[in-house]
């Protein structure tokens, strides 16, 4: 009470509190004083000397405490109003127009489509193509729900996704490579699994020289790793790798520099480097030779399509973009990303 009286009411808010505390619930004054905030603190400091035992909390006191911070209440109201106003004005301006395409999906496909989108934008002034990632499943789900104009998936459609339309823009193939001087010409799938899971550690066990096998594996997160694991039905914890590499070029250099190494890389890079004279050779899978041509026709088993997916038959801008992404004019972009263009 002493504390309350030492404070001069210098603005309106304080005045209100002052009037309230004079005319209001005077029986509960001690509660107010032990209450919260700077008033409470300075008041209780002086007041507690006089009445140290008063620390009750009643509904009235709580109500009063709510009244005690009108300043920040107002601040909040202002902020909330401001925020919602800006959001409303923004969202009304954000109607998707005929000049914008949104694509979401596979992180493997996204860098390729991003480059296609840049070229598409430069050929169609005023058009914007936004490419977002999130994974193949997300791309398919977004296309299904209509959140994206086009989804991207680095796999074929599953049976339950039959209502979607898929358009392959490229293929991704992986092949097993050995050093050129290695006498082995082919390995069965079972032998490759045994080598990668550490059951076979010497080339003599598969018909080669008596030399230890250097297993070169890809770092986690690489799409080639996923495809390799999926095809050979391995999990990444089963693999006993001697060398872990990042990109395709690094894998090719590692195998070319070690005559006892085995690795797997993207087929486009491997074929280009092998024909450029780098000391590697590409192993067939089953009876199918590892070549870009076989990936392009889809006969090479260690490969997957890179698809654009739409909910309904594409029209307008989406149709134009899909047509562009499947045309010859982007084949250089596809090769730059180490994928294989589809030849009709």
């Amino acid at each position: 009470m002493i504390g309350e009286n030492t404070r001069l009411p210098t603005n309106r808010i304080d005045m209100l509190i002052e009037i309230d505390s004079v005319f209001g619930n005077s029986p509960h004054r001690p509660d107010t004083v032990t209450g919260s905030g700077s008033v409470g603190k300075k008041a209780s400091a002086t007041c507690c000397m006089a009445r140290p035992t008063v620390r009750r909390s009643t509904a009235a006191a709580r109500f009063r405490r709510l009244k005690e911070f009108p300043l920040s209440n107002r601040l909040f109201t202002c902020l909330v109003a401001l925020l919602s106003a800006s959001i409303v004005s923004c969202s009304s301006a954000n109607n998707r127009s005929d000049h914008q395409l949104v694509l979401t999906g596979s992180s493997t496909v996204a860098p390729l489509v991003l480059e296609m989108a840049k070229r598409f934008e430069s050929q169609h002034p005023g058009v914007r193509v936004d490419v977002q990632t999130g994974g193949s499943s997300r791309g398919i789900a977004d296309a299904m729900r209509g959140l994206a104009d086009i989804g991207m998936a680095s796999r074929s459609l599953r049976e339950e996704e039959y209502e979607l339309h898929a358009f392959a823009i490229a293929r991704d193939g992986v092949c097993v490579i050995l050093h050129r001087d290695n006498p082995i010409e082919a390995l069965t799938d079972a032998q490759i699994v045994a080598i990668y899971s550490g059951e076979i550690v010497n080339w003599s066990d598969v018909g080669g020289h008596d030399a230890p096998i250097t297993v070169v594996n890809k770092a986690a997160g690489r799409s080639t790793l996923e495809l390799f694991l999926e095809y050979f039905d391995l999990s990444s914890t089963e693999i006993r790798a001697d060398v872990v590499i990042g990109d395709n070029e690094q894998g090719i250099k590692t195998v070319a520099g070690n005559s006892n190494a085995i690795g797997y890389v993207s087929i486009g890079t491997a074929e280009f480097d092998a024909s450029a004279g780098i000391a590697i050779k590409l192993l067939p899978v089953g009876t199918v030779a590892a070549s870009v041509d076989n990936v392009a026709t889809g006969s090479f088993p260690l490969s997957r399509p890179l698809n654009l997916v739409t909910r309904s038959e594409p029209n307008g801008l989406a149709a134009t973009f899909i047509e562009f992404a499947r045309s010859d004019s982007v084949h250089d972009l596809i090769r730059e990303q180490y994928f294989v263009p589809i030849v009709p």
Partner: protein
Amino acid sequence: MADRLATIFVWSAALLVTSVFLWLLGGIVWSGAGQLSWSFLIDSPRNAGRAGGIGPILISTGLLLLVCLGVSLPIGLGTAILLAEFTSSTNRFGRLVRWSLDVLAGVPSILFGLFGNAFFCIFLGLGFSILSGGLTLACMVLPILIRSTEASFRSVPDEYRLGAAALGLSRTTTLLRLLLPTAIPGLIVGLVLGTGRAVAETAALIFTSGYVDRQPTSLLDSGRSLSVHVYDLSMNVAGGDANASATALVLILLLLLINGTASWVMGRWLRKRLITI
């Protein structure tokens, strides 16, 4: 003997932490410094980021930070003042707010990303945009900012408030002229920590501000942040490692710049106050 063991332990722990940091920094500088140039900072990325620079990405990151701090600073300051000055530490509402902030501070960032995607992008219709990303970041940064600011308000001695009351200052004047300046260092610490968390974020941003590496023309454009770019180049783009390191180096330099500016501002502020008071 026990003392010596403790000393050895403390020193080796500190050395370990320092050497890990230096090793990490050294690795990034070693592999990234070669790529760094003025044109790297202003050019657009080409060939999925393997070539070209990070100009638009730097701008997107800056805009994201601006939105994030512009929203979180007033709200954070307001809430901190409410918690520290207008409610006692036992107040039920204050406890609820504090509890929810502590829960929020521990939520993994991917959840913020999914929330931001569902709420800002889809529900509010902002789409993949810098605004969505910045608002999501603001949600992430708020708990850190509020708790640190609140702590610094609480650490202001009660004598200040008593003195102000004795002089007959109004509560608003006390707050603006006395408590706020005294609490500024804590606010800046919270700001620096929050900025660090925001700049380092990938999971919350990939679903909200998106992946587009075009120069943003408005806050409603999708924009890629530096850390998303680093993530994409190192995990997703074969042959992007060199530019990933260079971008990581820029990210670290940016953080050091922000921290340096913050402590410089704080130092100036404190000196000015010492002279005028």
